[in-house]
């Protein structure tokens, strides 16, 4: 069996079906573990008292919002360059979850900003660029919904995704490039994390849980898209007939 056989929608459909329960269960268990750390093992914070616990959702959600977008842009670029059908389907399957995480990052940020900063929202570079990310997600999803022709929709949506990808480094580096109300990153590759170890652990567990959740949900979605687009093939017909 060669690697590229996985790129055939039929093989991938079955493979994804086998993987989904593993990712879903891992996501669930990791979430429970992460929540346990977040609320029962992680100590209170010296500045922000218990309000800081919002970080255990806020940061993983913000990471996912940017990361999912980059993965979408990657699949879009592959699809545009090599005209591979499956990559466009992957991009479409990821978008709603990316939008969801962007909303969660903004929502939890507002609930964190009000008691700590003294404002639900400010128009600083970090917050504004994250809001633009939400608009990009919504715009891309709307564009896909608006164009009935599948191929044309794939290309238009992926093109918009690629153009918007410039926003991701802007979000990430905004706190360094410009002065913002939002603080800098607690974790980066260039310096030691400025967080107590157990707090960091809780955040990372929640981040991995969000990852697995995203993979599970995206796989469910991509299977549906595959079946829809391949319904005239023999294997898809067999599935539709066998599964009465």
């Amino acid at each position: 069996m060669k690697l590229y056989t996985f790129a055939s929608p039929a093989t991938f459909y079955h493979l994804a079906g086998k993987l989904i329960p593993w990712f879903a269960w891992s996501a669930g268990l990791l979430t429970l573990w992460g929540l346990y750390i977040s609320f029962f093992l992680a100590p209170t914070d010296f500045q922000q008292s218990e309000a800081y616990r919002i970080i255990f959702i806020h940061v993983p959600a913000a990471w996912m919002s940017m990361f999912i977008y980059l993965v979408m842009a990657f699949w879009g670029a592959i699809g545009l360059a090599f005209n591979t059908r499956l990559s466009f389907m992957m991009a479409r399957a990821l978008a709603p979850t990316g939008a969801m995480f962007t909303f969660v990052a903004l929502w939890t940020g507002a609930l964190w900003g009000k008691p700590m900063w003294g404002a639900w929202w400010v128009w600083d570079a970090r917050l504004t660029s994250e809001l633009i990310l939400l608009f990009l997600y919504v715009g891309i999803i709307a564009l896909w919904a608006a164009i009935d022709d599948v191929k044309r929709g794939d290309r238009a949506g992926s093109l918009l995704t690629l153009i918007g990808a410039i926003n991701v480094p802007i979000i990430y580096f905004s706190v360094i490039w410009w002065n913002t109300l939002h603080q800098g990153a607690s974790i980066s590759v260039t310096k030691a994390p400025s967080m107590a170890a157990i707090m960091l652990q809780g955040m990372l567990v929640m981040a991995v849980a969000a990852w697995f959740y995203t993979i599970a949900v995206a796989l469910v979605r991509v299977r549906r898209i595959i079946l829809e687009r391949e319904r005239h093939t023999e294997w898809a017909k067999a599935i539709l007939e066998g599964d009465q």
Partner: protein
Amino acid sequence: MKSRHKKLLVILLGLSGLGIATALILNAFQSNLVFFYSPSEVAEGKAPLDRAFRIGGLVEDGSVQRDADGLTVRFVVTDTAKSMPVVYKGILPDLFKEGKGVVAEGKMGADGLFNSSQVLAKHDENYMPPEAAHALEQAAKAQQTLAQ
């Protein structure tokens, strides 16, 4: 056919609404790239003195004073090089503290007093339990006495 047109119209309206919103946000983005000015920048004349702007820095130690009305607060914002007196009437955020970061929005008075309409706390990216913070503080103090 009719419902198809309707759907297309709704989507077009939605997309153009989204486009307008994005343009407005980009405008806000551009005008807020400098979210606040430091007291040094204000002293250099970089801040727009004719309209409202934000200043940012640390609340100077020992500078916070409350007026008799219990609402008006006076404090000094410093970037260690230059400092600016600020007056503000209202509720302060929980993290407002001497020696900590602050961003105040308002207008510069003729007397050099910054009349603030909103005070925001700017905190750093450090998270640790109180005991650890206390230990760090003690260590810093010990180092200071050693240096003296």
